């Protein structure tokens, strides 16, 4: 499984991105990531519109390739808890 993760916007407008290959993760991390994605897939939260009111918020773009391919675009005001959980995991990879 491969994930392209991008965070942009924020007050500074700095774009950070990374690629996560699941085979480079520990077994525990792979399992955790798979659970996060399964949660997301089952709740059909991929297509929430971006916030029209937020200013200087972070935006996220996640391209998942795992047999199928899908993209999630969200921001920190509109994301739901499942997207939040996945993004919290992915953001640790930006550091």
């Amino acid at each position: 499984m491969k994930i392209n993760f991008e965070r942009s916007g924020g007050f500074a407008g700095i774009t950070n991105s990374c690629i996560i290959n699941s085979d480079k993760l520990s077994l525990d991390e792979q399992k955790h990531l798979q659970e996060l994605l399964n949660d997301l897939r089952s709740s059909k939260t991929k297509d929430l519109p971006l916030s029209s009111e937020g200013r200087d918020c972070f935006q996220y773009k996640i391209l998942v390739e795992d047999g199928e391919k899908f993209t999630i675009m969200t921001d920190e005001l509109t994301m739901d808890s499942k997207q939040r959980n996945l993004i919290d995991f992915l953001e640790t990879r930006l550091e």
Partner: protein
Amino acid sequence: MHTHCFAIPPYILEHIAKNGTKIDQDAALNTISISEQIRGRRETLSYIFSLLAVSGKKERMIFDARHQRFLPGQLIMSEGQRKAPNIFAREAYQYSGATYDFYKQIFDRNSIDDQDMRLDSTVRYGYKYSNAFWNGSQMVYGDGDGRIFRRFTRALDIVAHELTHGVTDFEASLVYRDLPGALNEHMSDVFGSLVKQHYKKQKVDKADWLIGKGIFTSKINGDAIRSMKAPGTAYNDPLIGKDPQPSHMKNYKKISEDNGGVHIYSGIANHAFYLAAMDIGGYAWEKTGKVWYVTLRDKLRPNSDFKDAAKKTFDVAGDLFGINSTEQIAIKRAWNDVGVQI
């Protein structure tokens, strides 16, 4: 529909919030805000806080998110309170007050909505959260990660920038995408900078024209987050890259990230403002700032772009200072110099 359970019935708290003395009101609101049962239930807090009458004067409330992501958090400071519980609250309180005072003294504007809307700020949002934002009704500040960013309340222009997003929402309501979004960002940088210059009593030649100076830690090679004087030069560091802002329209291209680059292309308009202000001289808020404020308040529309802003600032300068006045000519030259022809 949410079910809320209170130890004290909400109708009692409501009555106190509406009719009590200031001390009673603060106590009632504090009780509500620390209740674990309503943590995160913003709609309840909004309702309760909305009971406080708009009194025609500055009204600030500072909340502590305690490193969680629920808004607004616990009320820790309110208007008139002398001592702040921590430095984050002190800065958010002091700087939102300075911003209110600027808009009132210079433009006779009564708060964000010109009707003395209360200024709500949440500090200590999230864990090592390196950002500040406006969520449509309040300002929110993180502490920074301590590695790249320091706390976001420490910069007056950042506080004023966020508050100005509220002003823009109530006036031109510039769409937050592509060039209208860059114009939205530009307005926040302009008035963020002017609030700072006014606070420090600086004329154009003494101002640093930097946005977010001092927000990076000492580990980062960077003066600030943005430079209106020299877009593209604010920082250059292996950890965060180089300041990507251009100073001319020839470098504009459509991109997808950052809502179409609203924080990137604002540099073009920022530089136009800087050039006009330097040309006109004096205190930047008196003439150049006034033109920009009247333009934002009266002339721009949600889809206005840089060309619209150039034309409108030119027109407003003519209205305020005369056709072919030095001010109007300076503004035309400034926009032309950044590639936006009037």
